[in-house]
């Protein structure tokens, strides 16, 4: 009886240890999520969006990084008015559809396709096999074609994959200033920013490009968040050094400021040409 | 259909009046307790497990809820309903925790109608239902009248153990003059349009195809002809046959009927029943003449061969096969099919078919190729003969039916000594043994047969006919001797110790020439053998002397 009690106590202690460990790990995960702006508090999304907005003075991830060299970056496309939610109709059903792309938890990949373009067919086929797409976790794929006035509705209905929503909307093409089909835009749901955009010959390429753009976005966000203001003492010291150099005749841009430390003056034979300091 | 007995709502005692003023007419108080009071231990465990996985932190991306529900179905549903999707009308059992309501025939003493204390309150449609032989099926909800008298519980059937009197939900197309309603007591399944079933029902349609395959053991439906029933049992338009392409019609031979579908046909006769033939096997069947050809009507639905490599349909007089990995299909009909079967079938000496029946190139037979041989049907006597193995290879090596051996006359015969056998051809014989398979013909074969063939001192041939260098004759070597033949000398045997001596001397090209006799009996000089240009004697001690 005593043995059983002791054994049970040991098991309980072990389980308690496990629970504590799990809770600690959970806390650590929550902390990391918060740092990434995906915290669980209602305020955290707003805070992270604000933080991102504050970093807008710096590089704009997904906008200033050219995803495909041959595609112009969005800032260069005059007609781009910013990410917009999608409103249109379902193909073949006449269903009125409105889809949220901004201000939502999930990211959205908007795939602009058409029923007639040859390259688009590869994407229509790929979207029929949702498990093989390996979409990033928490990402929604939406297919957009132009409206019935510019597209064959019956053709789009035949092509539309059953696993994803297809919207016919000429307005969406205008809102996103889509240069042509196929074209893909990845939108960060909470902030409504474009994480990446571009095109490619097949889905694997596009996914790879969008994934790279997403990684760049994360890096830029982290860099922006890591900017630390200098202590006052360091700033004062730098100012004093600048004054002393200037008084000694060493102005900004002076060549002596750029001499490489690996050039020992006495051991190296003189250069063949004139001394640049003469 | 007569209207159900509806209990008029009691205005004085109408509970939930404030809710009703807001347009909410469900009977109050809500009977939302999980109906597990009478559930089995297994059901309660599964319910808790489902709640733990899905109820507290459900995620739209979590598949754990669905897994738990499937686990529930497996825990309580009879195995035959779960493991035989083609049985009956492909219905699916339900559990007490899957959230749906039981069918009326389960809880109403077998009657597929609203029980007392309930009324027809609404309906929805599920498309392409096998229960309705491929037509849409209508589910009519029987909601409890107010005040609710029943209690939320499990249906209690081993298959349709769904809940009863739990879900306070109404579809609302029927009896809209009755505002107050209790929970759904049970569901009526019908192929009759609801507005025909109950005159109070309007034609406003609500659709939910997730219930298409819901069923219960007490739900049965006669779907018409044997072909129609078969089609329904195979899942109807959503099943393996796919959508109907051509309605059922007579084949035209006075015996059978056929219906065409996207993925195959279903054939029926009184003696063979309704059988499906699909995909590549249907193409092979058509190539082989279909039901009015040598194959006859199919007698068995698609099944898998024992080794798992083939999909097969049996017919009255043959078989249809599809090789799974190569996806090639063949037919075996009539005598060829029976011969193949007698020789072990797919795993026998002939192996798998490599093509369908065809006319042999020189036009005197039908034949069919197999991996390790061929079967011929001879035109002149309808004999069905198989060649296989080493004999087949040797026959092919001499030119097959266009070579000197021409057609086989009979199957292989095994020798009495168990060491080999032979097969007879129009132009000779092929003997096979451990020494290989070799053809014999002409005078050499005649002499071999006269001497006793493989039972003679010679044994089995070790090689084929070989021309002698002088062009005058030929010889064949056997295990224990040889036969030499030329028009001038005749055909004679050299064997025993004489053979190696003769061969070492140069054989027929030696100074002795061709033999002109067999080795004779014992004489004063020993045993003597005559040759064209001399004779030899072999003494008792084995010494060979040229006389």
């Amino acid at each position, binding site marked *: 009886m005593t043995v059983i009690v002791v054994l049970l106590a040991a098991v309980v202690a072990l389980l308690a240890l496990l629970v504590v460990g799990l809770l600690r790990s959970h806390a650590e995960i929550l902390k990391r999520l918060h740092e990434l702006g995906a915290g669980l508090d209602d305020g955290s999304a707003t805070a992270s969006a604000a933080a991102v907005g504050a970093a807008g003075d710096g590089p704009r991830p997904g906008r200033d990084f050219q995803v495909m060299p041959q595609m112009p970056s969005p800032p260069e496309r005059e007609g781009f008015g910013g990410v917009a939610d999608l409103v249109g109709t379902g193909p073949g059903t006449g*269903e009125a559809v*409105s889809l949220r792309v901004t201000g939502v938890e999930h990211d959205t990949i908007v795939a602009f396709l058409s029923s007639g373009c040859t390259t688009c067919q590869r994407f229509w086929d790929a979207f029929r096999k949702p498990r093989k797409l390996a979409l990033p976790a928490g990402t929604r794929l939406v297919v957009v074609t132009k409206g019935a006035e510019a597209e064959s509705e019956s053709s789009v209905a035949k092509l539309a994959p059953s696993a994803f929503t297809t919207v016919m909307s000429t307005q969406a093409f205008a809102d996103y200033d889509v240069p042509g089909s196929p074209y893909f835009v990845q939108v960060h749901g909470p902030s409504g920013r474009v994480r990446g955009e571009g095109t490619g010959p097949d889905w694997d390429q596009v996914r790879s490009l969008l994934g790279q753009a997403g990684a760049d976005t994360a890096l830029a966000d982290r860099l922006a968040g890591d900017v630390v203001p200098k202590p006052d003492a360091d700033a004062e010291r730098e100012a004093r050094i600048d004054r002393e150099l200037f008084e000694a005749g060493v102005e900004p841009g002076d060549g002596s400021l750029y001499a490489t430390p690996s050039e020992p003056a006495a051991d190296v034979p003189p250069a063949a040409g004139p001394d640049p300091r003469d | 259909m007569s209207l159900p007995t509806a209990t008029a709502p009691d205005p004085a005692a109408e509970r939930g009046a404030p809710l009703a003023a807001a347009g909410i007419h469900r009977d109050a108080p809500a009977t939302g307790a999980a109906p597990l009071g009478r559930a089995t231990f297994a059901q309660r465990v599964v319910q808790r497990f489902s709640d733990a996985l899905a109820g507290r932190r459900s995620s739209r991306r979590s598949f754990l809820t669905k897994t738990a529900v499937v686990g529930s179905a497996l825990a309580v549903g009879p195995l035959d309903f779960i493991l035989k999707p083609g049985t009956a009308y492909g219905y699916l059992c339900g559990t007490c925790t899957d*959230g749906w309501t039981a069918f009326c025939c389960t809880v109403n003493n077998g009657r597929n109608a609203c029980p007392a204390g309930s009324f027809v309150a609404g309906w*929805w449609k599920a498309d392409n239902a096998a229960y309705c032989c491929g037509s*849409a099926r209508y589910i009519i909800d029987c909601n409890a009248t107010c005040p609710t008298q029943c209690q939320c519980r499990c249906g209690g059937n081993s298959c349709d153990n769904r809940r009863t009197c739990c879900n306070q939900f109404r579809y609302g*197309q029927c009896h809209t003059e009755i505002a107050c309603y209790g929970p759904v007591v049970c569901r009526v399944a019908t192929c009759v349009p609801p507005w025909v079933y109950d005159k109070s029902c309007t034609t406003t349609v609500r659709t*939910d195809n997730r219930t298409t395959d819901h069923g219960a053991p007490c739900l049965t439906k006669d779907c018409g002809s044997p072909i129609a029933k078969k089609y329904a049992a195979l899942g109807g338009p959503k099943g393996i046959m796919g959508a109907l392409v051509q309605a059922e019609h007579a084949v035209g031979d006075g015996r059978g009927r056929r219906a065409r579908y996207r993925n195959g046909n279903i054939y029926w006769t009184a003696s063979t029943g309704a059988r499906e033939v699909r995909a590549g096997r249907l193409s092979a069947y058509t190539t082989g003449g279909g039901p009015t050809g040598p194959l006859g009507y199919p007698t068995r639905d698609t099944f898998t061969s024992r080794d798992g490599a083939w999909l097969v349909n049996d017919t009255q007089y043959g078989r249809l096969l599809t090789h799974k990995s190569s996806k090639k299909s063949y037919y075996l009909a009539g005598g060829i099919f029976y011969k193949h079967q007698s020789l072990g079938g797919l795993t026998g000496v002939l192996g798998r078919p490599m093509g369908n029946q065809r006319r042999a190139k020189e036009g005197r037979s039908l034949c069919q190729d197999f991996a390790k041989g061929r079967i011929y049907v001879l035109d002149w006597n309808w004999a069905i003969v198989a060649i296989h193995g080493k004999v087949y290879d040797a026959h092919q090596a001499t030119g097959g039916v266009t070579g000197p051996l021409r057609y086989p006359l009979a199957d292989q015969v095994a020798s009495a000594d168990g060491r080999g056998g032979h097969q007879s051809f129009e132009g000779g014989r092929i003997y096979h043994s451990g020494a290989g398979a070799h053809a014999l013909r002409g005078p050499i074969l005649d002499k071999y047969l006269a001497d006793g063939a493989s039972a003679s001192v010679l044994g089995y041939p070790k090689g084929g006919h070989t021309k002698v260098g002088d062009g005058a004759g030929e010889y064949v070597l056997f295990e224990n001797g040889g036969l030499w033949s030329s028009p001038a000398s005749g055909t004679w045997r050299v064997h025993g110790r004489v053979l190696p001596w003769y061969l070492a001397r140069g054989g027929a090209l030696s100074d002795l020439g061709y033999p002109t006799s067999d080795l004779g009996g014992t004489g004063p000089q020993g045993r003597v053998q005559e040759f064209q240009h001399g004779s030899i004697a072999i003494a008792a001690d084995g010494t060979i002397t040229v006389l």
Partner: protein
Amino acid sequence: MRLDSHGITTDLPAGWEGRIALRRSPDPAGRSGFETRSPEGVGPTGHPAEAAFPVAHLANFPLPGDRGDFGSGAVDLMTAEDALVVLAEYGPECAGTPLFSHRGLPSALRPDMFSGSALQRAIPGQAGTQIWCTVANRAFCVYVVLGRQANANRLLPQVRSTLSATRISAR
């Protein structure tokens, strides 16, 4: 975001999206011409006399493409923070009948109006309510599902806002 179809108009609040659909009536002739119909005249997708009326699905979570009229397929994906509003219209013969006697769309939804049993299919944790009403002489069932009953106080303001922003115009 504005959604407008079949006389149903709604300005969806932030984070909400929607669909307004009208199912196609069964083709009397059958799509392939070879479809068999039952003796009762019912084909694979129903009877030609069935009357389809628009159904709106409004939600604060991504709606899947395949949904039953009362949200099956979508409710299976709901989390504790999600809400679904279904506006299902019925035929004109239903307008004003006792079941549909309430006039106007519901505006003052309260947590006590919801129940875990008032669902098309009971899903643990979820709660629903059906409100039957007549608006602009059109009969509707408003079916609201909350992903988690305990979150009603947090979810209902969004639902009320969505319904307040919805207008039904006469046919």
